[in-house]
């Protein structure tokens, strides 16, 4: 018999057999659905429930329970979500702050991703650095076992959507999509491009975060009406030209050329980016537009991303916003999900690109002043549309017995940015220092609107889930107004713990301005103070025997730190990490964790090691709500469709409850206890 026909039939059978996916059968028991609502505050939620503005939350609370949920210490999202993911405290999972520090250089580092050590071995050929031996991979700094791995191992189908702090993506058999902390194509947390013919003015004391490209609108067809703008979008670092191990400078990024043609008679433009064309009227947002960056010639290695445009103004001035280049969801140049196919699968099901950038709300443009509140709110609506579609998809895929987590950013960043227009928590509160009378009237109820939007989403979840499913709605922390900025390094200087060289009063750790031979403590991160410890810090002077007394001295003085404006205590609590953390990584923690009182928060400058003159200042930034305070002033929320056992639960109890729901034993080092009544 001739082999060919048989093989062709076999090929056809393979191609068209319609083989089913590898979905497992979850246990024959009720499933679990968790809505993780970043930044939802129990006081605001209670008020809205009382006023009938959050009927679905009220219904959920009445069916099971509602109580404040203890947050992490410090109350920062990466720390809090890591507590939730692992059931450990920072001593176990190793995430202490948004910002960590390198004790050898005193420079800030990302808490999520320690810098890779060995960049590998390269040969330079024709101007290209070609890898010969691979270097260290970027790894996720979080340690401990994620709850989804333990639950998956128990035979449960798990899907986790946009979980914070999960980038770089640790290996997992469960389906996970990384959220907050996922980078854009440039490798940062989201840098937008502002193409304009007018030099933007940054608010006082604020450096522009966007990549500003000054352009001229040119008259290419010589008809007397300027109509064409040429610009470029920056993509990933030009890795084959960048010296291995070197951080990219401004000119070390791959670019994609962009042409904008403005119609001579109407406020409408044609944007050309690669093979893509988009028609955009003034004030409109574009769809996602794919963009490709060639790392090697002739398309031998093309890295794909996606951007959205916003035509802020076409005439008489020209202002075009380009979103950070999101990693292409259909084929991410680096993994953002487990399995690697999960992110493209979602793109397929959602009909294309979605926000892959960890924090997609464009807070930087609003802080820079290139966006006004109306622009910002329009952009938030796009993010909401995106996350609402993903929630619907997660619900459609959910089956009895499954465990699904969906993260919602609707509340958190909007509380950060819009609190100044009207305090949603304290009726009759004094106007915020960043209050803007021109836009306050239009936006004073926006935060309430976002709560109501989430209430609508919760209603959709409650309608769709199988009735015996355990539904949890929880947040990582609550919110408070942020009215006073603390320059903690300035306070340390004034208290004699931090000394600058040459008698200077201001400077920067990164600029070498600190005299380490006389410095006993320094602040880096949002709630962290490190002792300049001998044997640990490169130029440490505090001996092991002195450490306890220096720390105690600091603690006493911090608790006595009063606001010179009204005598209000600035700091509510100061903890030694060795007293509050447990696990193998306590030694990496800051020596002291500073818990600010309501209204106070670390300045951005001090967080990154800058020493300014004043210790305190009014917060005039649009970043006007905050939670980087003592944990007791910013608890989150916990709502359950089943009765709660008692009060006083925290994030690690949620983890313990998830495991208990599926009969999984607590993992080593886990802190929490289940909160459902038996």
């Amino acid at each position: 018999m001739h082999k060919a026909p048989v093989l062709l039939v076999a090929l056809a059978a393979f191609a068209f057999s319609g083989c089913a996916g590898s979905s497992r059968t979850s246990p024959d028991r009720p499933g679990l659905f968790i809505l993780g609502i970043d930044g939802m505050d129990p006081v605001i939620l209670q008020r809205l429930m009382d006023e009938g503005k959050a009927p679905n939350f009220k219904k959920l609370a009445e069916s099971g329970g509602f109580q404040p949920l203890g947050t992490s210490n410090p109350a920062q999202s990466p720390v809090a979500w890591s507590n939730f993911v692992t059931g450990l405290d920072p001593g176990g999972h190793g995430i202490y702050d948004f910002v960590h520090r390198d004790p050898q250089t005193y420079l800030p580092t990302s808490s999520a991703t320690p810098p890779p050590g060995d960049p590998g071995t390269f040969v330079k050929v024709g101007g290209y650095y070609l890898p010969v031996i691979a270097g260290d991979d970027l790894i996720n700094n979080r340690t401990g076992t994620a709850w989804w791995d333990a639950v998956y191992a128990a035979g449960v189908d798990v899907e986790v959507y946009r979980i914070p702090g999960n980038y770089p993506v640790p290996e997992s058999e469960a389906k996970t999509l990384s959220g907050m902390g996922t980078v854009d194509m440039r490798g940062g947390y989201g840098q937008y491009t502002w193409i304009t013919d007018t030099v933007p003015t940054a608010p006082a004391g604020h450096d522009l975060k966007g990549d500003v490209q000054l352009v001229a609108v040119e008259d290419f067809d010589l008809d007397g009406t300027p109509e064409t703008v040429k610009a470029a979008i920056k993509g990933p670092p030009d890795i084959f030209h960048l010296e291995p191990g070197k951080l990219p400078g401004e000119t070390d990024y791959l670019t994609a050329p962009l042409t904008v043609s403005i119609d001579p008679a109407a406020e409408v433009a044609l944007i050309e980016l690669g093979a893509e064309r988009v028609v955009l009227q003034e004030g409109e947002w574009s769809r996602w537009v794919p963009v490709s960056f060639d790392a090697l010639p002739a398309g031998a290695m093309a890295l794909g991303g996606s951007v959205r445009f916003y035509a802020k103004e076409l005439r008489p001035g020209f202002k075009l916003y380009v979103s950070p280049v999101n990693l292409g969801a259909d084929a991410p140049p680096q993994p953002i999900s487990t399995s690697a196919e999960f992110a493209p699968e979602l793109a397929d099901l959602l009909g294309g690109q979605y926000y892959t950038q960890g924090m997609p709300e464009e807070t930087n443009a609003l802080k820079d002043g290139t966006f006004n509140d109306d622009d910002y709110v329009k952009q938030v609506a796009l993010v909401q549309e995106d996350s609402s579609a993903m929630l619907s998809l997660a619900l459609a895929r959910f089956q009895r017995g499954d465990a699904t987590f969906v993260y919602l950013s609707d509340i958190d960043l909007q509380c950060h940015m819009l609190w100044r227009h009207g305090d949603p928590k304290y009726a009759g509160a004094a106007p915020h220092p960043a209050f803007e009378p021109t836009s306050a009237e239009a936006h004073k109820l926006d935060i309430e609107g976002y709560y109501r939007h989430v209430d609508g989403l919760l209603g959709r979840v409650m309608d769709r889930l199988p009735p015996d499913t355990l539904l949890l709605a929880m947040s990582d922390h609550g919110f408070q107004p942020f009215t006073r900025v603390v320059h903690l390094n300035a306070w340390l200087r004034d208290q004699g713990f931090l000394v600058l060289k040459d008698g200077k009063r201001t400077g920067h750790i990164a600029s070498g301005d600190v005299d380490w031979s006389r410095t006993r403590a320094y602040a880096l991160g949002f709630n962290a103070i490190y002792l300049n410890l001998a044997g640990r810090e490169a130029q440490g002077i505090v001996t092991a025997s002195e450490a306890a007394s220096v720390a105690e001295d600091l603690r006493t003085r911090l608790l006595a730190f009063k606001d010179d404006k009204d005598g209000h205590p600035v700091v509510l609590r100061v903890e030694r990490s060795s007293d509050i953390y447990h696990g193998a990584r306590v030694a990496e923690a800051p020596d002291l964790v500073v818990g600010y009182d309501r209204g106070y928060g670390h300045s951005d400058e001090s967080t990154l090691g800058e020493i300014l003159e004043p210790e305190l200042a009014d917060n005039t930034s649009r970043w006007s709500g905050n939670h980087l305070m003592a944990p007791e002033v910013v608890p989150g929320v916990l709502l359950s469709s089943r009765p709660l056992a008692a009060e006083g639960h925290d994030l690690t109890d949620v983890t313990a409850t998830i495991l208990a729901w599926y009969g999984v034993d607590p993992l080593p080092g886990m802190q929490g206890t289940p909160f459902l009544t038996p």
Partner: protein
Amino acid sequence: MARFNSILTLVFDVLLGRLGHDRPWFDLLLWPILGGIVALLVIKAVSNQAGITRAKNFIQVHLLEIVLFRDDLRVVLPATARALGYNLMYLGYNIVPMLVMIVPMTAILVQLVSHYAYAPTQVGSVVTVVASLDPAVGGVKPAEVSIELPPGVELDAPPVRSAGQEVAWRLRVTAPGDHVLKVHAGSQVEEKLLSAGGEARKVSVLRTKSLEAVLYPAEPVPAADSPIASIQIMERHDQPLGLLPAGESGILMWFFGVSLLAGFLLKDFFGVTL
């Protein structure tokens, strides 16, 4: 070429369109296999089969020489050079058949692409249509170009006229159908098909005077004296094909993959040396 394309389009509109759209898997298996068979017949007819056989034999001989005498550089180096030489000869013998077979293969492939690669535009969505003026014809400025829309398609934004002699429209599709857009350029009118909603079917994304017309045969080429050089629908959505690879590149890879496989499996049956 335009006439050849038109005839083929008519034929394939019957073979794929009227008979095929409810069974894409069948067409996407049958036509690549036929493509493979056509390739074999072309190779048999126009290639130097004896030369190919001789070149392959010598390549095998010299590879064997390299393996057997791998410790003796005086043997290995000349053998490698000879093996490379016969490889070049082998490639040379294949140039003519490749040049011949590229015509029928491309003709089949582009027809499969127009019928199965693109999904009709979804009703409710927007599309960008770009008309380019032909600088060789001239006489019409972008300001003199307008579009006439049928029921079921609406203008979603004012047109944009660019310095690059293009006019772009953003259109919103409000009803399913094979809509005919009429682009007026001075006194001339060119039509463009916009397929929306409904079943999978032939979808035309580009109508052009340029050489690209060979790859996009779904609509006739604009007349040589037309001021319009091309009309293009910018948004292209892949038509899902189940487990088969979708879109232009998916069908391209599938077509050549299956053709190659069919060719290798059937070469003995047709008495062809590859």
